[in-house]
């Protein structure tokens, strides 16, 4: 029973994420903004969460 509940919770969370991913696919296909999104270099992090120099 306990395992089933956790599995159901995980399944629900996966479904919610899939729903959002589907929204992203729709947005990619159907909405183009005139505002450019500039390339972004994300910071690199050490395993402890600190930013690499």
């Amino acid at each position, binding site marked *: 029973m306990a395992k089933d509940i956790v599995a159901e919770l*995980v399944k629900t969370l996966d479904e919610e994420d899939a729903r959002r991913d589907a929204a992203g696919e729709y947005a*990619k296909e159907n909405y183009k903004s005139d505002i450019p999104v500039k390339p972004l270099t994300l910071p*690199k992090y050490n395993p402890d969460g600190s930013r690499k120099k």
Partner: protein
Amino acid sequence: MKRVDILFADGDLDERLVCALGLVNGKVQRIEGMQSVADDAMGGPIQVNGVKVYHDVEPEKFLDYLHTAYHSTYSWTEPPFEDDDESYDENGIFIDGLPDNAPIVPTLNGKESAPSDSATVSLPKGLKLSNLAEIAPKLTDTSFNHNSRTIHRKSNGQNLAEIAPIVKPKIIAGEVCESLVFALPTGLKLAFCPNGPGGGISNDCGGSGTGNDSGESLTNSVRSEPTTPPPPDSGEATAYRPDVTHDSDGDGVANAARVGVGAFEIPDKIPLLPNLTPEERQVEKEFADMYEHDPEGMVGSFYDQVMKVSAETGQPPIFETDAAKEWFPSWRGDMMSKSERLEFRATMNTPLHQTANVMAKAAFMRYLDTLKPGDELMVTNGGCGAGKGHALKEESGIKAALEMAAKSSGVWDSAGDQNSTENPWIQKEAEARGLKVNYLFVAADPKVRWADEEIGVVARAEKKGRMVDAEVFVDSYVQGAKNFDAFYQSNKDNPNASFHMVDANGRDKPMVDVSEPPNYLKAANRAELLKFAIDEIAKSKASGAIKSGAAAGQRIWKK
């Protein structure tokens, strides 16, 4: 001649360095300076002296990999090799040329480590100790990497090089703490506790570890990051920094959460957060610019998508802030590798929340205008990751929630981040249109929903990337329960509002109906809960990006 078998290894593609925990003639030794060559800069396999090691390996692949990993080799930086003495033994295991009595100095980041230093070792993502049980006999023949772990030296100055001998790895599997335990002298044991209270590797699965220090260190790291004020040149004074407890109309419900927009507001201009890093600021501002340049187009596109899903599924349309973030290209991963997308989502959830919240609210208002008097709505409330979606499924057994959903023409799936502040706004807008609103509140243990290895937001971030900040998370449970309770008390007799509350306390207990938000939330010690969240993320196996995203609020809303 020394025989070296690698137990754990952690690679760094940028610095072309792999660190490892290995056996050196039967002794545990932290090895630093393995040279690796990235053959896939996107996180794919790397070469460790000719042998492929996977950075993002799945357990199944890892088990396959073990069969090919016998020949993993490394290069010492100190002490030096005896050049002519490299060979493999009769089992195909690499034997290096290290002199028998050569001093072995554990190093950390290239420097000799003090006894209190930590060393980093790793396991493949998703690997559980139940898998390790299968491979324990092979441990001395393998190397693998990814997902940092920390060794806490608990022997009062005794470093790993002095801990000897290894007798035999064995697995202790338990419900609470699954451990890989190495037998060590003088009663000391080195235990691998991925999810136990000690986290990482410590001398005791139930040990105190150094989590508190780690949390403080993480906070300091995040606070030391560079920041840039909201443009254009108006400085931090213009930043959006509401008091999450301020209640201007005396209804007991706070006016705003720390992210998103004021409860009753759908502003034309997006309020910008304080103390963002230059990267966060760029993302926040670009999404805001997109909206401010074309609000009708963006909201219309979001609205159309929600309605399309509703038409396809036969379910009432569901409006939620998190889905609106998908209108920012990098959030959905356009032109990104999987690993880049995960890193982006780990650190950019908060900066994108402002615009996404406005989009979702505007689209929801547009939908309300299509309904007719007498129609009903459903609003879900609860902390981040509390299980609001689960309460709406038959498996939850919450019939009242299912009945609410069945009679509702639309759903406002409120972000936990908004702390239930939006309910008075929704009620007002609904009543103005002759609509009735059904409110569902889902309570849950915030510690479980933060740190649980399967359903916690940290674990979910490892899988999907989106990491909620700890300050926002804690608000969502503590302040959220207070706001919802106040709204319930003032509207429980309102004929245009109905309420149902459930408690999903614990990780694996059935949801149960309750008559009000439980006291364990309303009376929770916010500071203690925040400390728990920061300490837990600091000592977790989550990536550095997730840790940074989880603790970003320590910089954004620093006192």
